[in-house]
């Protein structure tokens, strides 16, 4: 057990307490800052609404992430293997990232409709870029001596790709995946703002229009919890399965 876990919990409880006491002491109205207890009451009172929102937004995030990671791996590998291909397309990849994702939002909705796929597309778009860059850089940084050794065993391009380049790049790909899943969540939530009926992003908008501050804060906490959960999940996977970062 890591030391200080208890202390961290205590600190969290302390902050919630401070929040509760502070809001009451300064007499802030619930239209400015709700109390912590009001926020949690709202959370408990609407479990179904929250659960539906979480399931929907997580589905969008994970789908977008999976597709984005696959696209990123594909393009990143192609860039790493072919200099010409990299020169041709990589600048366009970088350029595309200079355009704020919001600018594409309306277009994506017009193309893919108001359903789940427009959100998936935005999450995909945000995930693909870091995965592409890190896949490419990771594979390009492959140790030339190990490359020569495999070639001296008579290894061809595919063998070198799967037995050397991919495992060599995995630590840097894993770092990009952690970033990608967090960006994917943002993409899914923002995507919902362009119109839909379910999802955490929609609930956020509704809370804003209704000036329902306890709901708004409840949603902020839920989004934060999801973000921490998926990041921790990937961190755990990385620690367990991709342990050779220090060795290459």
């Amino acid at each position: 057990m890591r030391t200080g876990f208890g202390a961290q919990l205590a600190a969290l409880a302390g902050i919630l307490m401070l929040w509760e006491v502070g809001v009451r002491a300064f007499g802030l109205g619930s239209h400015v800052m709700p109390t912590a207890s009001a926020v949690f009451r709202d959370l408990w009172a609407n479990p179904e609404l929250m659960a539906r929102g979480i399931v929907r937004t997580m589905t969008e995030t994970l789908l977008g992430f999976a597709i984005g990671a696959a696209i990123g791996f594909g393009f990143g590998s192609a860039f790493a293997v072919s200099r010409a291909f990299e020169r041709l397309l990589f600048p366009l990849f970088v350029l595309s990232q200079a355009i704020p994702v919001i600018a594409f939002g309306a277009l994506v909705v017009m193309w893919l409709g108001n359903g789940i796929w427009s959100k998936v597309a935005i999450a995909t778009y945000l995930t693909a870029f870091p995965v592409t860059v890190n896949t490419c850089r990771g594979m390009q940084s492959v140790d030339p001596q190990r490359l020569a050794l495999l070639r001296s065993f008579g290894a061809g391009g595919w063998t070198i790709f799967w037995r050397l380049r991919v495992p060599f790049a995995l630590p840097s790909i894993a770092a990009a995946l952690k970033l990608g899943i967090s960006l994917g969540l943002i993409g899914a939530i923002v995507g919902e703002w362009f119109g839909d009926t379910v999802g955490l992003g929609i609930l956020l908008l509704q809370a804003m229009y209704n000036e329902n501050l306890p709901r708004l804060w409840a949603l902020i906490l839920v989004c934060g919890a999801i973000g921490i959960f998926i990041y921790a999940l990937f961190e755990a996977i990385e620690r367990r399965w991709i342990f050779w970062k220090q060795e290459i």
Partner: protein
Amino acid sequence: MANGTADIAAPILQLSNLSMTFESAHVTVVALQDIGIRIGRGEFVTVVGPSGCGKSTLFNILAGLAEPDAGAEIRYHGETKRALELLGQVAFMPQRDLLLPWRRVVDNAILPLQVEGMPRAAALKRAEPLFGEFGLSGFERHYPQQLSGGMRQRVALMRTFLFERDLTLLDEPFGALDALTRSLMQRWLLEVWQKHQRTILFITHDVEEAIFLGDRVLVMTARPGRIKLVLEVPLARPRPSSMLTSPEFIALKRQVLAAIEEESVKSFQQTAAD
């Protein structure tokens, strides 16, 4: 076949007129010049020379990783080959162990077999009896980063031996080891070599090592790298470590050292002049 009586008449490898020039925008470096070597089946030949004499370049050519200048003749098993045709034909062990940190010891050892297309189960079966001999019993499931330098080097050697080719190139395999481990590894390597009847070309910085291991010692010159001296080592095998202090050994060592010293001075002056 070994013991200096190797079959030179039908050599496994024969090089003549082999030169290698590196050209860049500003400088032209002649790394190797007019190298000629004959290596018989089952021979243990050592190459010793000052740093920068092109020993590693020679190995890269023999491993099929670099093409020498036009005019070189490489005969492998009596057939004329281009260097690139040797790719996959020669077992090559570079200076660094180059183990793959994501593979366990056993999976590192069988890598060349898998590259050749052998299924993992069959490759494991082939490797299994060798772990004891290579001093790795009980460490099959470890990762390389859990092993000492000497053990890592043995994994790399085992990998090279499992890549069964008629010629094995070892590039300073014990260079990074401490003196004690090194002398243990030398005697162990001789045992393995005699048991498996491999032909070995072995690069080293260390004159004692070159004489102790070799049937013949090739002394190379500084840039451009040439073969300055070919010395037969008539010492009987198996060679005990007490041999290192015998008069015959010391006489050989004196001969090699004299040749090398001349070269080292030249190399030093070159560097100073550059």
